[in-house]
């Protein structure tokens, strides 16, 4: 009993949020991240526009809110980080906390690289011509650089000047100094935010949680006033109900809710552990989940109005090129063909001058607005390529660029805070660490460690490793972790004891909604998701990635080499196997302890 108390740490000395508002804003800042901006709009587009909201909202109610509630309850009750909290719930399942810490560590390593890119783009926005607006000139000043010609200026800037990407994951180059500097800056800022623990974090989240909304509103106003934006918004919201019949839609909705809320990383437990014991987390859980989903929808309106603008711009540029081509080939006066009657003239000229028309051959492009809108992109491609392409065509593009990348930075930094605190809180709860160093030193060491390892992502092949971590580092392990969490709390710890704890904290019992969801619906949905992931992974064959080919000027699908595949396996296994290994270790320790006691009792009796 006493030994266990010693590992728990003293309740009385724990730091706390200044007020519940800081806690709510911290959760909002953590949950509302880059995924709301670059993953949800993509899913919305892929799965039938407005119709996607139905599975999304359903999954929020069935899966998202109950699990969010559960994590907050655990953190607030146990008042420890994930390792200590899960060890307290069940000593055999202390590994769950460790798995969370490992996964959060992986996330910390690669997530800050996105912030480094945002800094890079932000600093490059302070120029009269945005560097991704035009192709740079080649060395003999005859034309643009070839790679840039084959691709687009925005792609060239991202792949060549920002990443200096190599042709495949095997070709490692040196570290990109600019990237390394930006990563250093990103980590220094993270350290500044967490330097005094929740006291400093609590003040920072006022800004990181609210300012992105200001920028989103400004962008919404700018977006809907752009020419052609209505095409994008209409396209997005037109529901295609037949998509709802596909199981992938529902699975993607569940996964999006799951990852968007940041469950399973231990950040929520860590945040809640700094709460007052009687804090009303029930209301807060619902508020934060709703705010997160609302932000996703809001951000997708902004994204789609920008999409619509970009698609319309490209479509009209295409029409302009076709118009010029026709004018130049047939030597017609400039004002005969206008943008509206291009298609009419194509038919006309084909009829009147068939041989000359045929000589145009492949140079005549077909301009299709639908095809432009259909180019759905997600992830870093959306944020850094598509968006910057749209921004460069806006008037006063430097201002919009600066605003946009500041928003991306705040979203990313807010999520980083949660990730880093998820790692630091359990570590600082461990007795032997808190005995030897102060929180500031621990924070500094963790930041330094992550920075040094993160430099690997700034090498020339760094983006490929980044994608690998992004796709495999946290997805599968999280599902497993949260599944074990829910089963532990409901069946091993017992839903009755959980109910009593909640009643102790909040003053009222769990109502049936929470009980049914936590004990029944959520585990079933999680198991279904888990099985789907495994099946998908096995069926997918060799894992592949998109490698940038500089000759072609576009990405090609390449298979991972064997050592990279082994590394993927290591990523998946390393966090998941914490759970069985810790259980085994605890079991052996208890057995040794128990057999040791039995021997002593036997000897006393016999003596």
């Amino acid at each position, binding site marked *: 009993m006493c030994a266990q108390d010693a590992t728990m740490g*003293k309740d009385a000395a724990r730091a706390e949020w200044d007020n519940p508002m800081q806690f709510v804003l911290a959760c909002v800042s953590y949950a509302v991240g880059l995924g709301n901006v670059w993953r949800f709009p993509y899913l919305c587009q892929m799965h039938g526009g407005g119709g996607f909201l139905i599975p999304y909202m359903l999954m929020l109610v069935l899966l998202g809110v109950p699990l969010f509630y559960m994590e907050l309850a655990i953190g607030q009750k146990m008042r420890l980080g994930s390792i200590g909290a899960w060890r*307290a719930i069940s000593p055999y399942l202390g590994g769950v906390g460790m798995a969370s810490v490992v996964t959060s560590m992986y996330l910390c390593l690669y997530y800050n690289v996105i912030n480094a890119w945002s800094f890079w783009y932000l*600093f490059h926005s302070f120029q009269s011509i945005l560097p991704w607006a035009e192709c740079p000139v080649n060395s003999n000043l005859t034309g643009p650089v070839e790679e840039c010609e084959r691709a687009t200026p925005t792609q060239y800037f991202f792949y060549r000047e920002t990443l200096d990407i190599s042709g495949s994951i095997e070709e490692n180059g040196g570290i990109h100094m600019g990237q390394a500097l*930006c990563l250093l800056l990103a980590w220094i800022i993270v350290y*500044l935010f967490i330097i005094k623990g929740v006291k400093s974090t609590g003040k920072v989240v006022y800004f990181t949680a609210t300012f992105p909304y200001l920028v989103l509103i400004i962008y919404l106003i700018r977006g809907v006033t752009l020419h052609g934006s209505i095409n994008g918004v209409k396209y997005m919201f037109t529901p295609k109900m037949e998509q709802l019949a596909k199981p992938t839609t529902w699975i993607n909705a569940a996964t999006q809710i799951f990852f968007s809320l940041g469950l399973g990383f231990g950040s929520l437990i860590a945040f809640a552990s700094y709460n007052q014991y009687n804090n009303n987390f029930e209301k807060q859980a619902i508020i934060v989940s709703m705010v997160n989903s609302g932000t996703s929808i809001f951000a997708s309106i902004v994204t789609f109005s920008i999409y619509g603008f970009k698609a319309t711009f490209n479509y009209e540029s295409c029409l302009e090129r076709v118009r010029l081509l026709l004018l*130049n080939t047939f030597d017609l006066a400039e004002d005969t063909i206008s943008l509206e009657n291009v298609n009419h003239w194509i038919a006309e000229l084909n009829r009147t001058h068939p041989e000359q028309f045929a000589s145009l051959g492949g140079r005549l492009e077909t301009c299709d607005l639908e095809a432009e809108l259909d180019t759905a992109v997600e992830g870093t491609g959306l944020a850094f390529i598509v968006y910057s392409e749209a921004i460069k065509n806006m008037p006063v593009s430097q201002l919009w660029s600066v605003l946009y990348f500041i928003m991306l930075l705040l979203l990313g930094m807010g999520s980083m805070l949660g990730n880093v605190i998820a790692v630091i809180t359990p570590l600082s709860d461990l007795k032997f660490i808190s005995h030897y160093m102060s929180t500031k030193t621990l924070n500094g060491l963790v930041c330094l460690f992550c920075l040094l390892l993160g430099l690997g992502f700034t090498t020339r092949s760094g983006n490929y490793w980044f994608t690998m971590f992004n796709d495999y580092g946290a997805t599968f392990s999280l599902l497993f972790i949260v599944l074990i969490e829910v089963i532990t709390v409901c069946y091993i710890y017992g839903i009755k004891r959980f109910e009593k704890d909640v009643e102790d904290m909040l003053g009222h019992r769990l109502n049936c909604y929470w009980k049914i969801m936590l004990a029944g619906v959520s585990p079933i949905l999680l198991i279904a998701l888990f099985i789907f992931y495994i099946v998908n992974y096995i069926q997918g064959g060799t894992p592949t990635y998109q490698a940038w080919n500089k000759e072609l000027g576009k990405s090609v699908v390449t298979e991972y080499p064997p050592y990279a595949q082994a590394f993927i396996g290591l990523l998946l296994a390393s966090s998941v196997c914490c759970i069985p290994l810790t259980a085994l270790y605890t079991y052996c320790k208890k057995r040794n302890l128990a057999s040791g006691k039995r021997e002593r009792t036997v000897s006393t009796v016999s003596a």
Partner: protein
Amino acid sequence: MLVWILFLLCQVGAPALAQDLCQRDAPNGYKVRISLKTALGEDAYEWNQSEMFFFQATMAFAMRRHFQMETYNVDNIILCVQTSRVSFWFVVTSPDNTTMLIPKADVEKAVRMSRHRINNAFLLSDRTLEFLGIYPTLAAPVNPDTPPWLIVFGVVIGAVCVGIIALLISSLLQKRRKEKGMTEDGQDEEDMQVKGVENGINLDGTYNRGFTDDDRFTKL
């Protein structure tokens, strides 16, 4: 009489000869394409014979400037194949011998040298006054000594480092002050023991474990 017939023939023949020299896809000629409405929009002037004459004069000027010979004249610039696009072909004849054409390469050099002047004469640009086959020389990229992004980076990282150092120093000073026993309300130090503080009197209390939940830990 004969002289007069010869003279007549020359008058007729010369333009005919000129027409032979200048034709579509002439080996030593260039096609020029002008996009007035794209360049000037509402302020576009009308392209007429006077403008064509102006073009001839400008080209003659370009040839004079390049070869440093005062002998080039508007007659040496022959235009043909005019279209309503406003495009036409031109060839340049040598001032000494009107049947001989100046080679393409020399014409190109002359145009390149005076391209800026030719563009400005017509209020156009490289893109709207095109000499098909002569690519404009692009402006050399401006390479500042310090890339501008580095300057912004330096400012931001400087500010952040100053912030960190300030925070560290302030907490160090607070700790020193506390060690000297001068603090009474150390709310912003995370290592302080929270003892009951009521009406400014420190109540020394210890956490009584007698009332802890016994079944808080899962039984093995």
